[in-house]
């Protein structure tokens, strides 16, 4: 996997030939906190087209994860007020939250931030994966659904997938769990993946394998990815376009090489300086990890 920009449906200025998978216009999200109402997202606009990866990068508290959760309408109604336009495959989920519920797990799936807490601890991995498989394909009988689950685990390069189905979340490592969660997201056969800091809770060596897997799946399925990260190394590896976010607004947007190579904003330069090293993703570290069971303690 190369870190160089890949050719996509989107042109250099971010405009594309077809309709975008995700069209966000003037999105505003106000969070109701104990300290009062906070405008976490203050009028952002962007598109994600099929097969491309759009990254929102920013420090913690910049509103990037809130943007992702707002797009999926996963913020509790009593804690967040969402306005503006968010269209997933042309359906406006701001105007119609029920459309969001219908799209989740089908048109759009989430890869959550912390894989250790993203699965129910009292149900087996297989039970949770089979549930999603059956939600998407209600006609499948037990054996066929199980075969599909094994196929999905195999696709995210989990060794011995049949045995892993019986495992409980606490029996798997963080990297392994994130692969399971990616398999669950794929079970919905989504057109858009929202990856909310998918690697920030993982060991560095495991991170590379997960990102590599996401890019590989994107190549084979043409899924569009909205990537949320604070890590410029991650952004540089996966993105076609990057939006730099600060205090709820995009301060700089553009091609990944342009942002990394010639940042216009002082904020972006400070983000760049905070990254100790950008190398290491393309070499051995990224390729070795997936073949063996993850050995890191969870």
């Amino acid at each position, binding site marked *: 996997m190369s870190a160089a920009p890949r050719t996509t449906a989107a042109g250099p200025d971010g405009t594309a030939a077809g309709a975008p998978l995700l069209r966000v216009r003037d999105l505003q999200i106000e969070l109701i906190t104990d300290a009062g109402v906070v405008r976490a997202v203050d009028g952002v606009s962007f598109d994600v087209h099929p097969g491309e990866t759009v990254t929102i990068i920013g420090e913690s508290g910049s509103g990037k994860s809130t943007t992702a959760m707002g797009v*999926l309408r*996963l913020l509790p109604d*009593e804690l967040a007020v969402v306005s503006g336009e968010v269209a997933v495959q042309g359906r406006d989920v701001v105007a119609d939250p029920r459309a969001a*519920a219908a799209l*989740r*797990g*089908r048109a759009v*799936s*989430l890869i*959550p*931030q*912390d894989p250790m*807490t*993203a*699965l*129910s*601890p*009292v*149900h*087996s991995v297989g039970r*949770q994966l089979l*549930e*999603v498989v059956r*939600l*998407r394909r209600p006609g499948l009988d037990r054996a066929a659904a199980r075969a599909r689950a094994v196929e999905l685990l195999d696709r995210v390069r989990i060794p011995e997938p049949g045995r892993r189905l019986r*495992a*409980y979340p*606490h*029996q*798997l*490592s963080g990297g392994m769990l994130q692969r399971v*969660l990616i398999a*669950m*997201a794929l*079970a*919905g056969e989504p057109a858009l993946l929202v990856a909310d800091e998918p690697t920030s809770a993982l060991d560095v060596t495991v991170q590379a394998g997960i990102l590599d897997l996401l890019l590989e799946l994107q190549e084979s399925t043409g899924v569009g990815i909205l990537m949320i990260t604070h890590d410029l190394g991650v952004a540089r590896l996966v993105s076609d376009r990057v939006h730099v976010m600060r205090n709820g607004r995009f301060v700089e947007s553009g091609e990944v090489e342009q942002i990394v190579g010639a940042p216009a904003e002082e904020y972006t330069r400070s983000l760049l300086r905070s990254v100790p090293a950008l190398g290491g993703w393309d070499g051995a570290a990224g390729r070795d990890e997936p073949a063996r*069971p993850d*050995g890191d*303690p*969870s």
Partner: protein
Amino acid sequence: MAHYVLRRLAQSALTVFLTVSAVFVLIRLAPGDPATAFAGPLATTEDLARVREQLGLAEPLPAQYLAFVRDLFTGDLGTSYSFQAPAFDVVMGRLPYTTTLATSAILVTALIAVPLGVWMARHAGTRRELGADVAGVAAQSMPEFWSGVMLLTVFAVLLPVLPASGFTTWAGIVLPTATVALLQVALISRLVRREMAVHLAAPYLTAARSRGVSESALTWRYAMANSAVPVLTALGTRFAAMLNGVVVVEVVFAWPGVGSLVVRALETRDYPLIQATVLVTAALAILVQLLVDLAYPLFDPRVRVGKAVRR
């Protein structure tokens, strides 16, 4: 697993033995003399001495205890002074009434408290939830002797639709059950609400929602399954406590269970009967706790005993 159960059973037996031993000593140290109750108000000092001799109470305490332990291991718990029958048989005769009432009360509690707690968690912050919360605090604050008498006054006296006391028809179980359940529902439903509120806001729930899992499945399958252990523990503990005799309620409704029996045994200083009651109810309560502990692995894979965690 079998090894674990055996060890727990041995621990339980020791606990019961120590409990009964403590009770044996304490009731003899407490003021009051069974001979006075047994021989009647007109008894002379000589009568009392003779009765003490008869009941084996003239011996020094260590000798009495040794005799008690020797009999205990042959399965003899002594003869009740007031019933003039083997104390164990007297207790076992009353036990079905207490287990029936306790089972009825815990089932009603679970069937009401769990859905109510879930409903409160899902409607947190609404007016109706606030109303349920206030009602819960009120129910929790009412002593059972008062709520029992109130229920009795309303449903057996003012509107005579239910029997006031005893257990001759199944209708007789309604008011005692309601009295016990009122307090327990208030306590357990708040526990369910607290647990459910935690799990309804858990990251895994949001993640499952993002995969398209329905809201009812999220509530009942995800959050409920994850709340099961503390709720089960509370229900098990309450049930074990009820088996020790729902004393106040049994007295209010003249329920012929272990609770009213122990009150009578204490009044008459019927030592063998007190000891037998403590032995039976303590053994039962500890057994219920053991069953609850053994049920944990069914509800939470993380506490499965003797199963190596695979990484």
